[in-house]
């Protein structure tokens, strides 16, 4: 069972503020999701893990410079900016 504390903690990790009714609702929903995963418990556990659904490996690019955005373009969606920097809340 997902506890209220678990949901609050998840909320904090995502920097999302949760009201009391939200956290109860999320707890129920997360429980359902975790229940769903218990189906996997029926599978034999000596299978080797699959890291990726694609059969591809070794996809690389060469170390060649491509154009970057201009500072104006990079900052064009930023509501808060200062002297070419993005502005964000101070976090200690």
């Amino acid at each position: 069972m997902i506890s209220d504390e678990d949901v609050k903690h998840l909320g904090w990790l995502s920097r999302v503020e949760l009201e009391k009714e939200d956290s109860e609702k999320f707890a129920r929903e997360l429980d359902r999701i975790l229940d769903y995963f218990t189906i996997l418990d029926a599978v034999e556990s000596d299978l080797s893990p699959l890291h990726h659904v694609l059969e591809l490996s070794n996809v690389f690019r060469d170390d060649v410079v491509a154009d970057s955005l201009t500072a104006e373009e990079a900052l064009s969606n930023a509501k808060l900016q200062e002297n070419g920097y993005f502005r964000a809340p101070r976090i200690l």
Partner: protein
Amino acid sequence: MLNVHESDVDVMIGLECHVQLNKLNTKLFCGCSSDYQNDPPNTHTCPVCLGLPGALPVINRKAVECGIKVALALNCTIQEETLFYRKNYYYPDLPRGFQISQYDFPLATGGIVHLEGEKGREIRINRVHIEEDPGRLVHKGAIEQAKYTMVDYNRSGMPLLEIVTEPDLKSPQEARQFLNKIRNILEYLDVFDGNLEGSLRVDANLSIEGGQRTEVKNISSYKGAERALLFELTRQKNILRRGKKVVQETRHFDEARGITISLRTKEVEHDYRYFPEPDLVVMRVGGWVREIERSLPELPDAKLDRFLREYGVSPVHAKVLTSNIHLANFFEGVASMIDPAFCTRWIADILKGELNYRGVGVERIAQPDFIDLMKLLEEDKITDHGAIEVIRTILDHGGDVGEIVREKGLLKAEIDETEIAVNAVIEEFKGAVDDYRSGKREALNFLVGQVMKKTRGRADPDHANKLLIGRIED
């Protein structure tokens, strides 16, 4: 090795070193140029390193090659299959809310670094992995007083190698020694320039016998590592002395104040919710190892041994000469023209001392210039004192040896020649000497003229003047 402060307890230190592969042209997952050091903020970004929705990372092949090079140089085993993970945490320096890093299946595991030469202490390497650098946070004034954070994503996505040691280091001094060794190896491999700002960042674990370990974050220099660990060691010892227990925690190193501060972070490892990065496929690079191994240059320990054998230098000199690839190459270039036994002292002791004093690299003096200077010394045309003056002048103001020697009149032969001429003139023109002694000032002009005549004008008249007066009034 241990100093008085530490000999009384057993100390265990482990390091996580983050080094930027700053010799690459581009970032780890996008083609943005890595040459951002002198550029305004946010001028080296793209949808990938800004974390814009839908942007897809593609791995820089050369970054993986560099990682393998480093791992091999640290005697690690390269893993057959290696992959990237998402490390989730929410912080302004990470635009996507996660860092692409490695977790299970890192690039390489299980290495060894010798602290001093091949017989030096062995420090075990736990793993080497590749990850991306976060952006850079800037605060106006002190961080505690800042109203907000300013973010520059030029650094975001730069290729980093994380090198993790086992807790084998026994003192802060040894930790610094280890970092110097790592820097040296990386510079030998030509994958790293340690002079660039932010090129090295270290997290350190320290515990003393019977206590919990603390992790110190935010160490960003070689000297800083030693200072942070010395502070942390003293702090822990004081806690034990008061009969209290060291609690396991993460602390932040405040470089300006030279202290560590408790961070009280709530995030523990499982909070990072690592999972394989779905936008990147696995890497199978085992097949690259043999070729990369063949391309590895001679590394510091091997070079040190060869210098001992080939040039017959002392172990102390060999260590100094191989402590930096540029100095080692400089020495070999000079030693191909000048007797190694002779130029070793000049490079390892004198030149290195002058470089250290100024905090500059050997590239400040051109090799042919230094060879010219050594030739002057070998031919006894300049005094040791004069040669040192030439070195200092070049390091401080530039210029070439011939010019400096001429301008400063440092050629020994000139001085000798003038002295010989002065002595001969005093012998030869006793009458004029007596005239001068009895107060005839103009007699001196005559004598100087004679010296100039004897040296065919090569003596410096002022110098001849002084020598004559000195000799006559003696």
